[in-house]
Each structure stands twice: as C-alpha cells, then as structure tokens.
C-alpha cells in the first residue's frame, strides 16, 4: 500500500461505489413515488 494517490488507496473505486449508492437511493425513492398512484390498502 505504499503507492497512494493523493493519500487515497483506491480513489477511483470510491467514486464508483458512491455512484452505486446514489443509484440505489434513486431507484429506492423513485419507486416510492409510484406508490401514490395505487389504491389505499391497509
């Protein structure tokens, strides 16, 4: 782990996983919006 990039071990991966995180959050909340069109079930 000697060669670090601006003090980060794997900065590219960090960017990728945060992209993944925002993608999951987008899908999650995006799908909740569709619920409001449905019939009220209890």
């Amino acid at each position, binding site marked *: 782990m000697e060669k670090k*990039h601006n003090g980060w*071990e794997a900065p*590219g*991966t960090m960017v990728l996983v945060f992209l*993944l995180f925002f*993608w999951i959050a987008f899908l*999650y909340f995006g799908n909740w919006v569709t619920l409001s069109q449905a019939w009220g079930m209890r």
Partner: protein
Amino acid sequence: MAAVATPTVFSGSRNEYRVCPVTTLKVDVAAERLIIWNAVTAIVALTLGGTYALLIGLTRWPDVHLLSAPWFYRLLTAHGMNMLVFWMVFFEAAGLYFGACILLNARLVGVKLAWVAYALMLVGAVMVNYIILAGEADVMFSAYPPLEASPLFYIGYILFAVGAILVCCIFIATILVAKKEGRYQGSMPLAVYGLLTAAIIALFTLGSGAVALIPTLLWRLGVIAGIDPGFYRVTFWGFGHSAQQVNLSAMIAIWYSLGTLTVGSKPVNEKLSRTAFVLYILFINLGSMHHLLVDPGLESVTKFFNTSYAMYLAVLGSLIHAYSIPAAIETAMREKGYNKGLFGWLLNAPWKEPGFSSLMLSLFIFGFIGGPTGVVLGAGQLNLLAHNTWRITGHFHATVVGGTTLAFMGFTYYVIPLVFRRPLFAKALVRWQPWVYGAGMILLSVSMTLAGTFGAPRRHWDVTFTNAIIPVQLPSLMNLMLTFAGIGTLLAVTGGIMYVVVCVGSLFMPKREARSLNPLEA
C-alpha cells in the same frame, strides 16, 4: 484450533498428485477427474437450458409467439430446473472440489462418495428432464401444490438434492482434514472462505428443500391426504431463494479469484471481506421471505424483519464486496504503475482478457441492475406492485445470469487450460463472448423489468389475452419492452452458443500443460 499443525504432507495418503507448472499448485488427480466430470455435466445442462431459453424467449416476443401454450409452460419448467438448479449446482460442485483440494493443496476426502454424489445428481437431473419433456410435470420450478406433477419429478428433485448435500459434506470434511493434516498454514484463502460460505448456505437450503419436497412426494404417492400450500411456500422458498444465495456466494468467491488471476489483486482487508461473508452466513437466507411478502397469514413484523435480512445486514455484506473487489483491482493496477488520474487503472485494465471482462461485466450487471432491483423489490409495500410480474424475472436474470453465470463462464476460461490442460479453442471468439453475453443479458433484464412495471405477468403465454372470456388490454409500451426482451434473448443466446462452442471445441484440442496463466496464451 489448539492442535498443532504438523506438516505431514503426502504421508499415509493413497491419492496421486501432479504439480501445475504455471501456478505451482499441487493437484489431487482424483479431485481433478471429479472437477472435469461435474463441469462438463454443468455445461450440458446449460446447453439444454439455453436451448429452452431461446424457444421460450421467442414465444414471449409478441410478433413471433413461437411455441404452443403447453410446450411453452413445459419448456419454461425445464428451463428453470436446468438453469437455476442443474447448471449452477454441477458447476458449484466442480468449484467446491477445486477450492477444497487445489487451493488448499489438499486431498479429497471420500472420493468414492463424491462419485456417488455425482451419480445421484446425474440420475436426478436426467429424471427431471425426462419427466418434464414427457409432459407429466408442467408445474414450473416452484411446483406449488396442489398443482400435480408425476411422483418421479419429486423423486428426481430429491435425488439431486441428496447428491448436492453429499457434495457439501465432502467439501467441509476435506477442508477440516486439510487443516488437521497441515496441508495449509493459518487461515484458508479468501476464495475458499467464500466457497465455505456457499456450502453452509447450501446445507440450510437443501434441508429446507427436503422439508418441502418430501411431504409433497408423500402426498403424490397417496401416503398423506394433502399438503398445506402456505407451509410449502415457506419451506420451498427456504430452498428456492437460498439456492440463489449459494450462487451469489460462489460467484463472489470467483470474483475474488478472478481478480487475483487476471491482475494479481490482493484483498484490501481480509477482515473486511471475511466479515461480509460471515454476514451472508448469518442473515442472507432470511431473504427467502421476499417471495412471501404478499402471502396471506404472515405478520408484517415477520415479513419486515426477514426481508430486510435483519436490518439489511446481508445487503451490507454485498456493499462491502462491491467496494473491496474493485478496490483490490485498483490497488493492484496502481502498483503496476497505472497511476494516472482517477480511472487510469480502469482504462488500462486487461479488457481483452475474457476472465477480466467477465469479472467486470458480472460485477456491473449484478451491482447496478441485479442487486439494487432486489433491494427495491424486497421492500414490502413496493413488492405489492411487483410480485409475480416480469420485474421479478428481470431482477433474477440480472443476478443469477448476468452475474453468476457470466462469472462462471469467465472462470471456465481458466479452468480449461489449467485443469482440463487443453488450450482454448477459437480464441477470437473467447475475447468477444463475455461482451455479447453481457450485452444480451443487460437488454433482456432491463426490458423484463420495464415490461413488468407495465403489468406484464411472469410465466405467461399470451399477454394479449386473445381467447379470455373477459378481454384485457395491457399498455402498448409493454409490447415494445417484450420485443426488446426478445432481441436481448437472441443476443444472450448467441453469447451462450459462443461459450458452448469454445468449451466443446477445447475438449477436442490436443492435451498439453498450460504455458501461461493468461488463458489466451496458455
């Protein structure tokens, strides 16, 4: 743990070994033979399942609508069994023997029993295929009672499962004996740890399957009067969904292995990766509840706790792997000097190498399509909008096909030169195979997901409802998505044919020792 490991390699062992010239790993010849037979059988099952996939894919393409209704349902049943069970488990059996024996420098415990297991699985698989094609088990993979299949179908299913249980036990016995005999020092390699995770999950899976299927067989034989469909659903999905978690763990073990084989990556933190596997062992099987979210009779708390894998701890495991695998590749590439900018390591990665491209495509498809759709579908209230629609099918084609199958395919390109000891056939084809297959799977799974959001049901021959008594019209956008899914099927089947051509062709190449780790140069 307290016992002192004494290095008594070879002593008192009847097993023969050879040493691999490329990896310098010691290979138990008896295990190698089992690996070869299980892997070849897996590819036969994949070929059968792929043929059925083409036919049912062309049937769900509205403008083609190839098969008749009975044959559509029949081949859909056969497709599910061959792909989800036979292809996966035969390949995993090969993988477990590989992990336990070759990676641990160990001898296979119970070679004869391993052949018995293979025979049981083979007989079970042949019986199930035969009885389905004979038209006596049009019940789908899930075979929900009171739908009736021939007793031979359940007997085949159970024989296969018993064989698979034996494989897991032999695997665990082999690693325990390897430790005792001092074949490896300290902890087992991470890849074997992942396979151990898969084997433990598999034991729960197969046990649950037995609890579901044995009473069903007794009912079909007339021993008991009936079987409660709710009981069957709980126990069957303890098998049906957990079996996919076995595939997941095996796939991740293969991801780590392929990272090492292709770019020489080293796990960034062993504790982190192993913790993720332990989270799988503990919680991932609770995910079977995903199938029961809109079932009658289960309390909301039961549903929420189980579908969330106890506070999404198994999802946390997956998110850890999603970081630690690319991070390991990145650090390995940076150490090789590809240090330019944020993504220089990624641009200069060996994309032409089939093991690497399969690994990255599999990571992408599982990580960005399969996994996230699973998290969304697993939220109870959202599942109400998706249960039994083609969204579900889209989700698991992104996980178990675009993810697991693609990873297994990439791994095969290493197994052929190193274990079969034959050079790859048609290397130009090998380079493109993961890309064609991956592209087809992305198109297929995304189209399925979107068609499902427009209401397309799964396991359905005619979404135009032409002969139904009360006419139904689903949105026209759904038809467009069904067409895209058809095109995706064609593309994926093309990739599948390329894979089978390479594998079968390689079997007829002259036998020789591998000359390099890179499968294109071996």
